[in-house]
């Protein structure tokens, strides 16, 4: 089985999708000839042609607006927003248009659009190359939100998203493009090729990982950890270092959420720690916390804890103080276990 890093896996997914359906079309800033600032679309224009993979003017509003029109025609556009931090100018086209068109047209205009965008920090990218805005999208009726945590899932989920007939926000955790991240900023990154795990093995051809299904990354009896993207790995470090028998669930899809897997786990462990990098207040962790206590109240032995980034803009030099690393997670694990 070939081993790929996440960029290669995403590139492979796009290549497979372009080859499979003549309607798949990739557009975005620098995605064409150059192949994307993270090289996720490298080689695709050459292989599939300029009218299927092309650079755009720098207007995120336009990129999504045009994608909506293409979807109305019958294409399956896969626009890229160069960094998730730059998605806000496109918000109206996403929230008021893409998300609602199937509804407001009573099915006449479905919107099979997959918006890819690198997100998250840990790369010294400062305020505008680090944000995790998933919480803005999970609040919007009509959007799905998907976040992979490894190469296998990245390809499988991306192919599922492109095949899906609804708009999907596909956030790619750029910190782990090249290799998983244990959460200690000074640990050198081990490339995915050297990671001894099935998730780094990526079939060349077509396969999907279904949307809406979480993955239990590690089984455990003490406490349930809910995480996605980069934080799945950081949560792993914290569990290993703490000695707590944590059950780690990689959500993979935030909307629609795999509530059954979550419920089953929390009912088993009686404790829950939610981990994300986004700012705390109003983040997706709040929704998870609310859902868990609504549905598992009588099984909870301790308050559900949220471990998140702080409610600040993403700082540059204090990046690692902002980042919810293993220490922050371990403190939460300690807290829930004490109760």
């Amino acid at each position, binding site marked *: 089985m070939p081993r790929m890093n996440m960029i290669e896996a995403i590139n492979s997914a796009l290549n497979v999708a372009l080859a499979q359906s003549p309607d798949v079309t990739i557009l975005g800033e620098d995605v064409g000839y150059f192949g994307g600032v993270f090289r996720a679309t490298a080689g695709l224009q050459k292989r599939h042609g300029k009218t299927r993979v092309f650079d755009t003017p720098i*207007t995120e509003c336009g990129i999504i607006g045009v994608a909506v029109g293409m979807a109305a025609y019958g294409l399956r556009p896969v626009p890229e927003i160069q960094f998730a931090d730059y998605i806000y100018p496109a918000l109206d086209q996403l929230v008021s248009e893409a998300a609602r068109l199937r509804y407001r047209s009573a099915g006449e205009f479905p919107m099979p659009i997959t918006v890819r965008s690198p997100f998250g920090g840990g790369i010294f990218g400062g305020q505008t190359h680090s944000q995790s805005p998933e919480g803005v999208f999970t609040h919007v009726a009509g959007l799905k939100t998907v976040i992979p945590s490894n190469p296998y899932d990245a390809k499988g989920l991306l192919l599922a998203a492109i095949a899906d007939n609804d708009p999907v926000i596909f956030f790619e955790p750029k910190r782990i493009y090249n290799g998983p991240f244990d959460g200690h900023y000074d640990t050198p990154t081990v490339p995915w090729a050297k990671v001894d795990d099935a998730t780094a093995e990526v079939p060349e051809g077509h396969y999907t990982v279904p949307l809406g299904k979480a993955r239990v990354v590690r089984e455990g009896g003490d406490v349930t950890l809910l995480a996605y993207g980069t934080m799945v790995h950081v949560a792993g470090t914290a569990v290993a270092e703490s000695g707590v028998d944590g059950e780690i669930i990689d959500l993979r899809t935030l909307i*629609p959420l795999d*509530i059954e897997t979550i419920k089953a786990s929390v009912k088993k462990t009686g404790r829950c720690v939610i981990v994300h990098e986004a700012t705390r207040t109003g983040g997706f962790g709040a929704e998870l916390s609310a859902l868990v206590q609504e549905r598992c109240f009588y099984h909870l032995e301790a308050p559900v804890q949220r471990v998140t980034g702080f409610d600040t803009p993403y700082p540059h030099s204090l990046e690692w103080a902002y980042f919810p690393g293993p220490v922050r997670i371990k403190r939460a694990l300690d807290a829930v276990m004490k109760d």
Partner: protein
Amino acid sequence: MIKKNLQPLALHVPEPKQRPGDAPDFSDVVVPPAGKLARPDSATPAADLKEYPYALIRVLDDNAHAVGPWDPRLAPDTMRKLLKDMMLTRAFDDRMFRAQRQGKTSFYMKSLGEEATSCAPALALADDDMVFPSYRQQGILISRGWPIPDMMNQIFSNKADRLKGRQLPIMYSARAASFFSISGNLATQMPQAVGWAMASAAKGDTRIAAAWCGEGSTAEGDFHSACMFATVYRAPVILNIINNQWAISSFAGFAGGEETTFAARALGYGVAGLRVDGNDPLAVYAATAWAAERARTNHGPTIIEHFTYRSEGHSTSDDPGAYRAAQAGSAWPLGDPVERLKVHLIGLGEWNEARHSALADELMETVKAAQKQAEANGILGHGLHQPLETMFEDIFEDEPWHLREQAAQLLEEDAVRRVEGQH
């Protein structure tokens, strides 16, 4: 802070020439004579069309004679169809406005005086060219022969509403008529139309796209995005700006209209820009036909400014008497599109007053009959709405668990409400 040797700066805030209490005065509106403007080949490079955004394409002269190279020389039958479409639109508007006033629905928007800017383009385009309208282009649906009762069902949000009562009245969607779902958010349809046109071009299709927005809406970033994509990819699209001089209470000066024309936006992007007498149905037809030919032969996009006037209020929620001169609509120097085409046809011997008033009566009957039919399916807020569970459909292709749960919750609540007689 303020340097004494320099004159102080001053902020210019636009102000229309008349306000309530003033008599309407359009003496500053430049109306060039009909027929004088040359008609360039539709393949002419945009760089050679720089004067057109400042001109005004006019075909019908003051006597409603069709003159000059832009005369589309339509067959009388075609012109009668155009006349009828505009009249039907007007009759429809009239009845639906009243229906709102009678409390049968929540909202309505008329297009009085602007009918030509929808009906004529609809005729000049192919029926399967995709249109991305704003909320004042009901004339397109009517021109394309869409069933009037269906439009009314939407307006009444009743049980026969294809859109399941989900949209504000007049926010139609009619894919079978190549008519895109109307958005309440201004100008979003402009880049969408460009995207559709780009898709059509990428596929080697032959269909083009057209979009409409008001002059006020051109200030939105979406409008600019549309122009950017249109010029970069030479998209086969027509971007129509309906300059009806008002955006709710704000005159066109707040959209940049004091400094230049709206067609001049085209120059900024290096695309073709036309400015047309929007109350001259033949001129509008001709401008659209030119732009459609340009698009269909891979010569790229055109921005068309339709110079017209919003004769009535913005919507049923608006009272124009609070911010502009009374009777401004009837003083508008470019006249009324229905009247102008009627006189033209009469001049040709192809029409007469009797037929005209008979047609007007007939159309009003058509509309009344349609209304009766639609009202039988219910009016807003009187119970004949769609089943409650439809609220959760079409959000996604498949209903996820959380929507299924919420749908069940709603049905339980409804049962309680019925038992308790409560709301």
